[in-house]
């Protein structure tokens, strides 16, 4: 396997893992915001 292929595989794998993590964090936060009493999307909830 050439160096370029090996590097590409590593980079793509890490980017996919980071992308999934970011997506999961964002979904989790959105679910919590939906459940928060009186909450609306992107509205300041804390003062």
């Amino acid at each position, binding site marked *: 396997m050439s160096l370029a292929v090996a590097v590409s595989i590593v980079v793509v794998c*890490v980017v996919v893992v980071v992308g999934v*993590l970011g997506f999961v964090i964002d979904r989790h936060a959105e679910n919590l*915001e939906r459940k*928060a009493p009186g909450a609306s999307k992107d509205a*300041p909830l*804390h003062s």
Partner: protein
Amino acid sequence: MNAPHLHLILNHVPTIGSAIALGLLMVALFRKSQELTRVALEVFCVIALLTLPAFLSGVASQEALAKMPEANVSIDAITKHYDAAVVAFAFVLFTGAVSWLGLWQYRRVSRTSAINVSLVVVLSVIALAMSAGTATMGGEIRHPEMMNPGAEPTAGPSWISAAAIQGLVTDHTWLWPSLEALHFIGLWLLFGVVLIVNLRMLGMMKAASFPSLHRMLPWGLLGLSINVISGMMWVIATPEQYMTNVSFFWKMGLLLLAGFQLLYLTTFDEPWNVGPGDEAPFKTKAVAASGILLWVCVMYFGRMLPFLGNAF
């Protein structure tokens, strides 16, 4: 002051700091105080940031001692301390990152998440145990009187070593360029988010509220995580290229300040109150401008590692 002097000043921060933060968090949970929980999470973030210079100054101290055979210290004891420090450093940073996520979430929903706080408790207990063990091994390098007569020195971790990480990076030709590529991906992920959020506070994209942009900050944290992991792998693999490199010390100093700026974005009220069409207060604008400048300087000194510091 030099790096070994700095290490002597900072080496208690991970242990004592983690103990204080964990104590605060326990009191907060006992009192069911959201405010105190938030303070404890903030302290964990500060400890994680301060552990960066504590670790790096330790690596520099090791490099300095290697050039001083007359110091008459046990290389084996230093190696054990270093191996333990790598593990402790990772756990302290991970605890700080999870704490930051908790603060970010608190900011959005005005309450802490039970899952997040539970994870912080578990991680911080491990981080504290690891830091205390590392500190003990560090003490034993110069203070044999702290051991009981006939007692063996404290054992270091057997499942990981700095030498193994060094071998992994230097013996596999695919790893260094992969880390380079990931470092750049992490950089644009982090800087992209930081730039957009700070530019909003400076008055651009006024139609967007700060809270709507604040939602993207975890992506910046993920970018920072990629860069810290890849960067530390390089430092562990080739410490001689960094520990006498003036550009590296500027980069790390500015990175520390930039980390505090990232903390400001989610812990302080001023930016959060900037709604659609609002003008941010002067103090917030000044912090936003300094944030952009700091990250640009971090990138500059990173690029200048081979030129200003004559490394590589």
